[in-house]
């Protein structure tokens, strides 16, 4: 950090972009035979949790922590790092070991490069130190730089493939539906007669990197990262590239045409076929139900650059109005303005979670398209919400194919919209006659009200004739209140039955606990 200090503090509740560390591990962790040594404190091993939980990894994630602890603070951490790298080299035998800095190692001004230089002569694996500032850089910037570093290191001049071929730059673990997107783009290209030469970083190895230049075209699928690597391949090897995230009708057409032009292939029929009256997209969009359910509805859109731009296009293509669209990618503000300035009533670039939350509240949209955080905000204000961008939660790591890109991606998005907002006829009826039974959102509050009014066991209404009414003493009543409302009634009934059977005249803590032990041990089916 040189002579500068750290003196500024900024209040933040949530982060939209991940850290440089998460960016580096997304790139390295998506590749083959690449192991990452994280030089940082114990807690920085949390990247394992993301791979294990969100991606439901079935192998131990390829990350090893070189722990900076109390001892390393006192005696220097070099020895620990050297030991860890040697161990990883021997145990995992990767082709590449990435030694990644963390905020802590950066603040400690550790010279990882120097360590790699000396150590690299002894290890079988090639050692790479990402050229990033782990303290300052954010996820996408780090991914962009690190991909470029990889490409610069390994790409070599190769003869082109016979058939027109492309490289897909972008798909990686922990991205938003990115692996689903990759499949969709692959099948799209197959229909067009274009070959995929390589994907980067997902599944790439040193060999893949070396053979990148066999392709005729690089396709950078997300605007947030990957373009610098394409730029480098253009400069060094004269490779052409496009940057495009094909979401919705127009952006997908542009994407397909751009490829068709370069490949010298006809693409019109592919586009026509997908938008034909018989196709799912047209049938949905043109349907009468969608006229009343969607046309003119007020939506807000917020996300990373690529998904916010794409969704804004898509929504306009199905007749939804975009009251405002925003992104947290502040560095891309100008491009964002240019891309959707004409499509949204207002453009809002901001990375302050609270400000966005307040803006949603004040807008009162019919539907929100946002990240996991906007989902939280929308739930708080009772607006329907669809997550369309990172940061996302486990719900957005679906099992069934769920692309965002291309025509399949659009079809899936229409389905999601369909199941999220009230459909036309249903809404008409509700508006006319009022809600019949509580809807999904209100169910809980309704139940809670019931629970509050019938809260305490003063006069149990279920008492059948002839039964003695049981008294609950103060402590027992207090304990009952602590039971979640949705099972409280059941607990009360069970406890009273238990008490009656055993001849208690009053419910005390002793009775509650004994009843609990009795019923719990009876239900030995594993549910808690």
């Amino acid at each position: 950090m040189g002579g500068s200090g750290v003196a500024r503090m900024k209040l933040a509740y949530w982060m939209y972009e991940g850290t440089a560390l998460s960016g580096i591990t997304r790139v390295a962790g998506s590749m083959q035979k690449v192991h990452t040594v994280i030089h940082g404190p114990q807690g920085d091993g949390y990247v394992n949790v993301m791979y294990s939980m969100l991606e439901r990894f079935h192998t131990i994630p390829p990350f090893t922590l070189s722990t900076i602890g109390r001892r390393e603070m006192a005696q220097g951490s070099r020895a620990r790092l050297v030991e860890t790298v040697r161990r990883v080299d021997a145990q995992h035998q990767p082709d590449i070991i990435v030694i990644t800095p963390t905020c802590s190692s950066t603040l400690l001004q550790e010279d990882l490069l120097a360590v790699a230089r000396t150590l690299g002569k002894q290890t079988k694996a090639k050692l790479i130190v990402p050229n990033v500032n782990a303290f300052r850089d954010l996820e996408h910037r780090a991914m962009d730089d690190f991909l470029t570093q990889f490409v610069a290191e390994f790409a070599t001049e190769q003869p082109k493939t016979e058939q027109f071929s492309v490289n897909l730059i972008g798909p990686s673990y922990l991205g938003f539906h990115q692996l689903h997107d990759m499949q969709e783009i692959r099948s799209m290209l197959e229909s067009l007669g274009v070959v995929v030469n390589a994907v980067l970083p997902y599944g790439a190895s040193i060999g893949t990197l070396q053979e990148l230049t066999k392709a005729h075209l690089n396709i950078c699928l997300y605007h947030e990262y990957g373009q610098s690597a394409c730029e480098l391949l253009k400069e060094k090897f004269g490779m052409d590239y496009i940057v495009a995230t094909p979401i919705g009708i127009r952006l997908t057409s542009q994407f397909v045409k751009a490829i068709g032009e370069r490949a010298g292939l006809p693409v019109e029929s592919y586009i026509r076929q997908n938008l034909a009256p018989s196709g799912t997209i047209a049938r949905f969009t043109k349907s009468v139900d969608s006229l009343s359910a969607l046309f003119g509805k007020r939506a807000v859109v917020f996300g990373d650059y690529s998904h916010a731009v794409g969704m804004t296009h898509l929504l306009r293509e199905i007749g939804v109005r975009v009251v405002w669209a925003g992104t947290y990618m502040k560095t891309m503000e100008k491009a964002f303005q240019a891309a959707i300035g004409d499509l949204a009533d207002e453009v809002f670039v901001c990375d302050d979670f609270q400000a966005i939350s307040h803006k949603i509240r004040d807008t009162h949209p019919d539907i929100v398209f946002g990240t996991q955080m906007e989902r939280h905000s929308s739930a708080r204000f009772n607006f329907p919400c669809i997550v369309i961008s990172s940061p996302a939660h486990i719900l957005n790591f679906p099992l069934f194919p769920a692309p965002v890109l291309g025509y399949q991606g659009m079809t899936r998005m229409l389905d999601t919209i369909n199941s999220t907002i009230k459909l036309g006829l249903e809404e008409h009826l509700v508006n006319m006659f009022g809600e019949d039974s509580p809807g999904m959102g209100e169910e809980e509050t309704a139940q809670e009200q019931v629970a509050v009014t019938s809260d305490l066991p003063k006069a149990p209404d279920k008492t059948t004739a002839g039964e003695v009414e049981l008294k609950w003493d103060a402590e027992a009543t207090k304990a009952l209140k602590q039971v979640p409302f949705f099972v409280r009634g059941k607990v009360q009934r069970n406890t009273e039955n238990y008490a009656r059977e055993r001849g208690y005249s009053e419910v005390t803590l002793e009775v509650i606990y004994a009843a609990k032990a009795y019923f719990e041990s009876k239900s030995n089916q594993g549910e808690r």
Partner: protein
Amino acid sequence: MERVERENGCFHTFCPIASVAWLHRKIKDSFFLIVGTHTCAHFIQTALDVMVYAHSRFGFAVLEESDLVSASPTEELGKVVQQVVDEWHPKVIFVLSTCSVDILKMDLEVSCKDLSTRFGFPVLPAATSGIDRSFTQGEDAVLHALLPFVPKEAPAVEPVEEKKPRWFSFGKETEKEKAEPARNLVLIGAVTDSTIQQLQWELKQLGLPKVDVFPDGDIRKMPVINEQTVVVPLQPYLNDTLATIRRERGAKVLSTVFPIGPDGTARFLEAICSEFGLVTSRIKEKEAQAWRDLEPQLQILRGKKIMFLGDNLLELPLARFLTSCGVQVVEAGTPYIHSKDLQQELELLQERDVRIVESPDFTKQLQRMQEYKPDLVVAGLGICNPLEAMGFTTAWSIEFTFAQIHGFVNAIDLIKLFTKPLLKRQALMEHGWAEAGWLE
């Protein structure tokens, strides 16, 4: 301690700042401000997303690069605290330090003192850096920060008289209780209100009507701790808090096992009763009853092999409980062992020949797992899924931190955390998964 092995500390666990997840709910009207980097914030939101929501009473003072090297962080911290005050109106703010605060040697203690004066309510520093501590010790740091709010004397309106404690002087019991010594009992640990109620009820049955707990959810209602106080920890990781109580308050810290499982709860209650001169004979019967209630689960567990990889510092008490269930604990890995505060647990485990590994090496554990072939592995969130794919059955260690596991009544919930994964595996095998071939 000779029989405790020590390894290189390369294992999977959480950073101590993760304890905000339960502490911000336990202490009412509080706000937890974590002074750290982007990494700390990203860690919390990815690791704890399942358990916390966007509008929780905690946030981050994110350190940013600046050309200005300011001598004290007070001014910058003050601005952030002001924003927090405007939005949340907390009665107490905990300022949690992190690795970067340690590395930059920022003095948050002094800043917090200044800010407490400026804002007129407590702004308390807690040392929760991941360099120094592991996962649940974050709770230790926060309780330690709260100690100044624990009064040394009962409030003047309610003087504690010699041999006639005020709290006994209401109701009919006054006469009977006259002879009791003026000592109070304080249980320590951030457990749920319902767990506290259960433990208080048990002790009341045994003749101890007044049991205080630290921390109380309300910062203004912390119990008195002084030379007359008997302190008993509920959690095994509160070592700094206990050390300070011993040193500064002269209170007696009872060394006992932890009230986890019927056996632990019984020993815990017996130790308290002996200390207060109460009859302990009823406890045995209660323990026996508690074990009888667990019988269906015990049948599942007996003879099983269970291994702890080490994560949340609850491993030793849990391993001890399992040995009492007839489980063969093949290894109790744990990040750190405080030999004094865990002495009794250690002794019991060593009597029962349990292999204890402090600060384990995950790679070696993986090898040992192949040898032991445990029926169940208790592991951190970051590795459970891969272990399952390798054919092991796992329980998430973090569940034990979030579940109510103390006392007789909760013993059923505790034991089910172990039986549930085993039953699930069995159920899957009975319903189609035998086809897969890899899950025997």
